[in-house]
């Protein structure tokens, strides 16, 4: 059975967790300050292409929408969404391990989060609150993060090599190419 969460080898994960009363401002401040603290903690989860945390305080409604009933979120929610490589279970294992220092400050502020906010218990919590994709699109769904990074570097490397190797004899060109790209 094909999963709507998958496009190629890429997987779209989304968890929506309810924020504890009184914690929304502290959570917002903490998440916004992550940039000032150095590289994103998500950079430690190597299979993450792109990811986000979003605080959803309410669902929007305007009189012009002609929506008959109100439908407020009774409690603000934290969304964690990640576009990742491969299978979800092993990814969440890595995520819950790598984010152990930050998770208590993030999901620890959400209702139902396990007290230690790490490991298998946190993983189960995130899976319990998963929202499946209806439709997931990945422009290069067959390429992993490491492949994208490697090929981007290789592209720069080839451009530099092409400039540097102008005027070399066939023997010199071959030797330089092998050393640069085919040494192993």
């Amino acid at each position: 059975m094909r999963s709507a969460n998958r496009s190629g080898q890429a997987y779209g994960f989304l968890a929506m967790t309810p924020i504890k009363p009184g914690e929304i401002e502290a959570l917002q401040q903490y998440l916004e300050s992550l940039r000032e603290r150095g590289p994103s903690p998500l950079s430690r989860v190597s299979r993450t292409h792109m990811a986000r945390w979003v605080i959803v305080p309410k669902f929007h409604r305007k009189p012009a929408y002609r929506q008959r009933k109100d439908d407020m979120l009774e409690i603000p929610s934290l969304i964690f969404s990640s576009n990742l490589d491969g299978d979800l279970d092993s990814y969440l294992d890595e995520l819950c391990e790598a984010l152990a220092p930050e998770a208590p400050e993030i999901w620890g502020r959400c209702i139902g989060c396990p007290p230690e906010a790490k490991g298998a218990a946190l993983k189960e919590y995130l899976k319990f609150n998963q929202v499946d994709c209806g439709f997931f699109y990945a422009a290069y769904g067959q390429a992993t993060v490491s492949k994208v990074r490697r090929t981007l570097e290789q592209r720069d490397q080839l451009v530099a090599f092409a400039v540097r190797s102008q005027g070399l004899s066939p023997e010199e060109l071959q030797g330089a190419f092998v050393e640069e790209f085919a040494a192993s």
Partner: protein
Amino acid sequence: MTATGTSPRNIDGQAISITVFSTVKWWGRLFLPVLFFVTARVPKLTRTLVQLSFIHFARWSIVKEIPFNGPPQPKQKLNYPHMYFESNFNGGWEEYIDAFSHILTSGMAAFWGSSYGFPKALPVGPFKEYIQDNETAASHYYSAYPHATITMIKSALELDDKLAPLKRNAKRMDPDAFAAAYETLLTDAQRCL
């Protein structure tokens, strides 16, 4: 707001995030799953999305219920389904919405036509206002390769395929044959560089 037309919190290098919730009419509960199912299986329907070449990842989800995690969370029965949309793209917010409106006009009508308040994709002014009203800025956004655009990534992946045979065979080739193959590669891969 930044020069890209969105909050700095939605940006990591070249990558920009957009997150939108919209409330879905009763018939969307039936229609949207069919639309998603068909769109995922008929490549022709996503061809324009692929050709636009500025979206890394995008997703649409239907939130029909809020999982109950125990007190103090109240048990909540939603009156309507809600559609979650996110995109990870490069370029500017304004250009992104413009392209969606003008190029994916019928697609927008299909995906958002069942949402309350959707004003049609064109004219673009009311559509931008609708998206802004329903958009929520990220609190933290991350890209693993923030300086790369989709075009750069696709070019790099294509170049990798073209380069692989020469990398594999370079050592055992005659120097003149290698030089000719290298020139052919550069000519062939010019648009990837």
